[in-house]
């Protein structure tokens, strides 16, 4: 075993890439849950985004259009969930699960004929001399556009929730939809907007997988990333900064286990493969041990059906 072959700086750069899809999806879901809606369809929206983005990028040879199409496609799918749960008042848990299964099937159908194709390359963002800065250059300034978009989104979501009127309204709807309604806020419309935003983020995360990280299309390629994103939202106790931490932690363990294998660490592969999931569970247990705080940070109306008459 030779751990010195693992360069921590390179590791950080790789984990940022590995974590970006789940970070994007988690941020979207965080906003949705802050508005009081529990959408378990993240996986389905991600994979739909992955194929929409891939197909459009291949057809137009433009990754940028691909990413836009991914956001549009997944947002459209999330609107199905929105209409069912907000207007027709369907059960959110059941509808969300159905959305995941539907998304997996739909993406496999849309993806017929796109297996084995090569997407147009997504260029790295040229930050000029910044990329040549020793140490930091490789870690921070050598990525593609979407990595920076995801980081900017963390800051934007945090600032929006904390400092803006919009954030206040969103939180009000999530904490007590009846009171928000009494104040004259359009609860259903606000929630639909949040759900659409969540869908777009998940779609962007999915397209990052199919256009940058792999880059290729295959059925079921998100392989559970959507579920991890859901766990990270709880892990982060609905705070964007902690969502970043959670996503990078998860991405880090995933990348580290492959690196440890390549370095010849004598730990059975199966333990390494499950370690990211184990750590996620462990952190969730530790978090929820502090009952009062976990309960406080969850939006009070999370998952509850709203109707103006009630």
């Amino acid at each position, binding site marked *: 075993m030779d751990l010195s*072959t*693992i*360069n921590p700086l*390179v*590791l950080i750069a*790789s984990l940022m*890439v*590995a974590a970006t899809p789940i970070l994007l999806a988690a941020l979207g879901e965080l906003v949705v849950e802050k508005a009081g809606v529990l959408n378990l369809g993240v996986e389905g929206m991600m994979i739909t985004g992955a194929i929409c983005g891939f197909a459009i990028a291949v057809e137009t040879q433009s990754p940028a259009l691909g990413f836009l199409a991914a956001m549009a496609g997944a947002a459209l799918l999330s609107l199905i969930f929105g209409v069912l749960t907000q207007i027709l008042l369907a059960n959110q848990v059941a509808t969300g699960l159905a959305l995941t299964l539907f998304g997996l099937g739909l993406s496999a159908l849309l993806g017929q*004929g796109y*297996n*084995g194709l*090569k997407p147009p*390359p997504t260029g790295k963002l040229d930050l000029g001399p910044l990329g040549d800065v020793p140490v930091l250059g490789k870690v921070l300034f050598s990525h593609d556009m979407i990595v920076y978009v995801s980081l900017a989104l963390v800051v934007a979501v945090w600032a929006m929730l904390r400092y803006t009127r919009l954030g206040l309204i969103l939180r009000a709807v999530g904490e007590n939809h009846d009171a928000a309604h009494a104040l004259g806020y359009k609860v259903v419309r606000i929630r639909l907007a949040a759900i659409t935003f969540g869908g777009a983020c998940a779609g962007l995360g999915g397209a990052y*997988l199919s256009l940058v*990280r*792999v*880059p*290729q299309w*295959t*059925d079921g*390629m*998100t*392989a559970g990333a959507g579920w991890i994103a859901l766990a990270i939202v709880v892990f982060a106790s609905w705070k964007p900064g902690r969502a970043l931490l959670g996503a990078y932690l998860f991405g880090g363990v*995933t*990348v580290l286990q*492959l*690196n440890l*294998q*390549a*370095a*010849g660490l*004598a730990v*059975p*592969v*199966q333990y390494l*493969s499950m370690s990211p999931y184990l750590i996620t569970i462990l952190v969730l247990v530790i978090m929820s041990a502090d009952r009062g705080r976990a309960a406080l940070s969850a939006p009070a109306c999370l998952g509850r059906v709203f109707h103006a008459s009630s």
Partner: protein
Amino acid sequence: MKFGSILAGVALALGLGGAALAQDKVKVGFVYVGPINDGGWSQHHHESALKMKEHFGDKIDFVFQESVPEGADAERTMTQMALSGADLIFTTSFGYMDPTINVAAKFPDVKFEHATGYKTADNVSVYSARFYEGRAITGFLAGKMTKSNKIGYIASFPIPEVIRGINSTYIHAKKANPDVQLSVIWINTWFDPAKEADATQALLDQGVDVVLAHTDSTAPLAVLEKAGGYGFGQAADMAEYAPAPRISSIIDEWAPYYIDRVQAVIDGTWESVNTWHGIKEGMVGIGEFSEVIPEQVRIEAESLKEAISAGDYHPFTGPLKKQDGTDWLAEGEVADDGTLAGMNFYVEGVTGDIPQ
């Protein structure tokens, strides 16, 4: 029990109804582990099957099922094929071994051909290619082409076929370049492009610059194309990644075998056999050496291929030791097929453990 008898009844009815119609037409079925457009293993089996279908034209019926998971689903799929009147079923993944044997026992009149396995029965043949001969050549090229002296290997499952490939790769990379180091990553799947891509990236992060894969997709090559480094086509030529990162490939040529075996069923001469062919018989093809390989190295690789093909050189020729330092083959001694078929140890110099 009741369900079983209903099934049998349905089978009988189907069989009686279908027999009159399809008596003179041989029905051939294929079961694939991945999608038929995975760009590698399954796609290549399918293309070979299509060549076979083209050869026979209307004389046979051809059915296939793609993306069949190894395990209970495989057994269901094969049963379904047998029930619907297939005379010959090709099951094209190692993990189909036990399902094939189980289903074959239930349908003694249906013939089965299992790829890369080792269990046979009266109506089950096995066929495989000596991929390790191709691995000798790609390993040699990897040793010559690496600048960092580090090469990486993405391995699927710890089965003899994969371990043979790793050993053959290492032995010949070492011959080409005595300083070479081999890192192996096990990902426990034949087909998961995201995992294959991540594993490739992890190897590159550790200074590896030539990556060999024993998985089914083109994801490793896609990553290498983006990040730099060399790789090889696996199972299919993967020429869309030539001349770099794909510098050569191991191609599985199944079509002649498929034509042979279907002909045997048509003629009524089919027997259970154990086929293990290599470069000589044409079952293992070596893809064109790309122009990024220096001319001298190309010539050496070509002569290595010739020597293996002519039978002058066996990739497992002594002196060779096992990983733990015990003697395996003496000077000039050649490994026998039995040992190779059940190979469960690394040769000396390969680091890491085989997961159990």
